[in-house]
Every structure is written in C-alpha cells, then in structure tokens.
C-alpha cells in the first residue's frame, strides 16, 4: 500500500515539475478526443432522427378527386397497384374526411383559418411506407404522371441530404482526430522524456541502490496515463456541456436529445481510450531511455 502511494506521489511530483509541457500534452489529447466524441454524438443524433423519420411514412401521394374526374375507385386501384411493388411495405389510404380531421388538429390554434376552410380544400392521400427507404426516388418516378396523382412529397430527400452532410463531417472529424491523436501520443512521449531528463539524478540513485526497473518506470507510466485520462475527462466534459446546450434548443422536427446511456457508455470508453493513449505515449518515451 505504501508502495502504491509512493508511486502515485512520484507521478504527481513529476507533473508539477513540467506544468507547461504536461498542459500541452493534455490539451492535445483533449482536442483529439473531443473531436472524435462529438463526431460520434452527431452521428448518433442523425441516426436516431433517420430512424424516427423511417418509422413514419416515407412517401405521401396527394390524390386528385371527383372535381378532377377521379373517383374513389381510381384511388383504390392506385393503392392496389402500389401495394404490388416489392419495395413497398404498406399503403394507408387517408380519405378526405380523415384528412380534414387531421387538418383540424394541426390548425386547432388557428380558428380563423378553420372558419374559412372546409373539407373540400384538403385532398385524400396515400401514405406509403417503404421496406427499402433508399428506393423512394424510384417510387416517386413511377408515381409521377399517374392520372390520379396530384402531388408527391417525400421526407426521404431531407434524410438523404442530412446523411450526406453527416458522413462528410464525420470523415473530416475522424481524420482530424486520428492526426491529433497521433500528435498527442508523441507529445506525451516527449513529456515523459523531459520528466526522465529532469529526474536523471534521482533515477541514477534509484538504480544504484537497486530499485527494480518497474519501480523506476511505473511513475513515468502513471504520469502518461494520468495525462491521457485528464485529457479524455476534459473532452467528455466538453461534449457533455455541448450536448446540454444543444438539448436546450427546441426544434420540433429534429430530436437532439440522446439517451443518457449512450453518452455514459461512450464517455467511459473514451476515458479508457485516453488512458491507453497516455500509456502508449509514455511507453514510447521510456523506450531505450530507461534501461539498467
């Protein structure tokens, strides 16, 4: 026990001696992991939202009605036709009455609008759920020009643009994080070398009196690990603050809050990763410099 406290005390003393260099190493780890972590969170936000959209209806087809010379039977025929397509999971028919109810709920707080409207202004529609969401363009293409079709709307387009942007941002962030992470490991290796240099007298005496190699090395390894851990801790804190700030923004269409468990799980993983990066860095710094 006294041995462990001794080693820890030693590691802390080391860090106090080179505050600036240690701060540099911690900062590098922090930037690297904060980048990677926020990219991960962003990715998850997009994924969750995509899922939300996907659980809704993917393509909405507004239909012409009697006034345009299209009968309910025509609606029925189109629905059956769409149902036959293999990429379609289900089709729900919303008739004018149902659509009017929907309209009334949506505009419940605008009585003046409801006063001047009636059932005739809302069209019947087919709400299509796809089994393969990425095929929505084909569906749109096939429906376009059908006599009963008035207008086609699909949220799929938004999703696609969002995913594109997300994957570009992701690649950029991950690339930066990797470069920065490499720099962080090298920086830690350097701080450890400096620490060894600063303590060369002490290390020489330790060897002289027969300290084992591990006894000499452990404080330096601990130092690197602590630097990595502190950097990772700061990164987790920064991402948490960022997430709190985002969660406070109220945007109806996009879900910005992620389940708590997701954040916690990855926070732990990143702390672990930071410590390991620190350990690798200090092992690199120790190499060759601390042989008997």
């Amino acid at each position, binding site marked *: 026990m*006294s*041995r462990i406290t001794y080693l820890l005390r030693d590691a802390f003393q080391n860090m106090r001696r080179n505050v600036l260099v240690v701060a540099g190493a911690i900062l590098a780890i922090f930037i690297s992991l904060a980048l990677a972590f926020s990219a991960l969170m962003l990715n998850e936000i997009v994924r969750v939202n995509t899922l939300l959209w996907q659980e809704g209806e993917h393509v909405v087809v507004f239909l012409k009605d009697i006034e345009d010379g299209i009968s309910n039977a025509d609606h029925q025929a189109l629905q059956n036709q769409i149902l036959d397509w293999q990429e379609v999971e289900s089709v729900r028919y919303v008739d004018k009455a149902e659509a009017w109810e929907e309209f009334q709920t949506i505009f419940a707080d605008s009585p003046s609008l409801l006063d001047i409207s009636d059932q005739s202004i809302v069209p019947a529609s087919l709400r299509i759920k796809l089994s393969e969401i990425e095929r929505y363009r084909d569906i749109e293409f096939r429906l376009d020009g059908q006599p009963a079709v008035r207008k086609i709307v699909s949220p799929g387009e938004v999703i696609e643009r969002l995913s594109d942007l997300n994957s570009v941002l992701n690649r950029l962030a991950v690339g930066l994080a990797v470069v920065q992470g490499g720099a962080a490991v090298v920086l830690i290796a350097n701080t450890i070398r400096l620490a060894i240099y600063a303590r060369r007298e002490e290390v020489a005496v*330790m060897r002289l*009196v027969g*300290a084992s190699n591990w*006894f000499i090395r452990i404080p330096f390894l601990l130092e690197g690990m602590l630097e990595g851990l502190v950097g990772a801790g700061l990164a987790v804190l920064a991402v948490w603050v960022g997430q709190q700030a985002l969660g406070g923004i109220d945007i109806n269409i996009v879900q910005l809050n992620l389940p708590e468990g997701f954040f916690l799980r990855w926070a732990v993983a990143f702390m672990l990763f930071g410590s390991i990066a620190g350990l690798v860095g200090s092992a690199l710094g120790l190499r060759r410099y601390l042989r*008997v």
Partner: protein
Amino acid sequence: MIRVEGVTKVYDGGAVALRDVSLDIPKGQFVFLVGASGSGKSTLIRLMLREEEVTRGTIWVAGKDITKLPRWRIPDLRRSVGTVFQDFKLLPNKTVAENIAFALEVLGHPRAVVRSQVAQVIDLVGLSGKEDRYPRQLSGGEQQRVSVARAFVNRPPILLADEPTGNLDPKTSVGIMKLLDRINRTGTTILMATHDHAIVDAMRRRVIALEDGRVSQDIIGGRYEDTMVQPKTQLADAPIEPVEEGADPFEGATEA
C-alpha cells in the same frame, strides 16, 4: 565474497581497460584498490555492479556469477552491494533522512521499518541531529557520511567505494575511514579504490595495485609506496605522468 577470474574489458571504442585480471576477496576483508588514473580501478568497480559488461572472464559477487545475471536480476545484485562515490550522489531536494530512506523506500520497505533503520544508521555515521538538513547545508565530510549511511542502511554484505575521500581534506578523510573501518568490523567486505597514500599507509590493509589494466601488486598489510616499485620503472616510457606521480609521495598527506 568477490572473485574475479580472467576478466578483460575492452570498451566499444577499442580502449582496453582491464587485461586478464584475477583476484579473490574473502568475506570481511578490507581491500584498497590503487593505481593511476586510467589504470582500470573504476572499470573494475563498474563491472562488479554490472554497469558495464565484461568482454571476457567471470565475476562472482556474493556467490553469484554476475556476468551471467539476466538483466532483470541486476537490481538484486545492487541491493547486496552498497556503493559510495567521490561525488556523493545525494539528491539535493531531499533531506539527510530522506536521502537515506530513499534507498529503502525504493525497495518497498514499510514506512515503520524505514524510519527505525534510518535512525539507526544516522546514529552510526554520527549525524544525529542533522536528519532534516539538506545536502547543501552540510560539509563535504558530512555529505559523504550521508552517502555511506545510504549505502549501508540495508546492511549489504559488500561495500564498494570509488575514491570516497577524493573530494575531502585529510582530516575529514580520516573520519570517513574510521567509519568505513567500523562498518568493516560488522563483517562487511569493503573494496575501496583510492589515490590517497596517507590513508592506505595508515590502515595497513590488503592493497591491490592496478597498472595499465593488470594487477601489478597484491600485498597484505601493504603501503602505497610498496605498490609504486614497478610503476616507477615503467614511468620512463610515459612522459606525461611522472610529474604528478613523482610528486605524490610528498603530497600524499595533504591531498585535497
């Protein structure tokens, strides 16, 4: 206790430090190792600590062939051999007590044991009352006492001293020698490399002289001058050394 057999040491650059050196030091003996600078004294001590590796030959320390010791066992060797150097090698940011305790802490001894051992050895070297001073607040002789205390605190069977009085005035040197003599009386084998004629002459112990990497003399109860017989004849070949060496016998007593 220490047995050197046919040891040759050639440094990487090709410099030959020791040539086929053999010697045997039984347990409890006090041995002086003398010779000019560059004669191989320090190399021999470094080999015994495995700070360098032999080119040829074998060295046994405390019953173990240390030339075949795996790297990870070297710390064990150093625990059984206390070391004292000319430049003390004390840590300036640690007090007397901390410097001595360091040697035990590093070996993982419990705090209570460390405290009592340190107190004992401080008493032994005569530094009671100065436990909390820093090295810079001590005289050279006192610093060397701390260094001896650190070397002896875990009671190693062997003590190696590389010119321990090299930086001390004669009077202070005598104090250190008395201390080493006392430690030797506890059964500790001591090998001390030195230039100090007065000390060698006063102690009348075994003297081993190295000359150009070879054992030139090995005299029980010898005096420094006895070892000079052969060197003097050879000095004719070495024009740079004579002034220093020739002057030594007269200045030995006041060597700084």
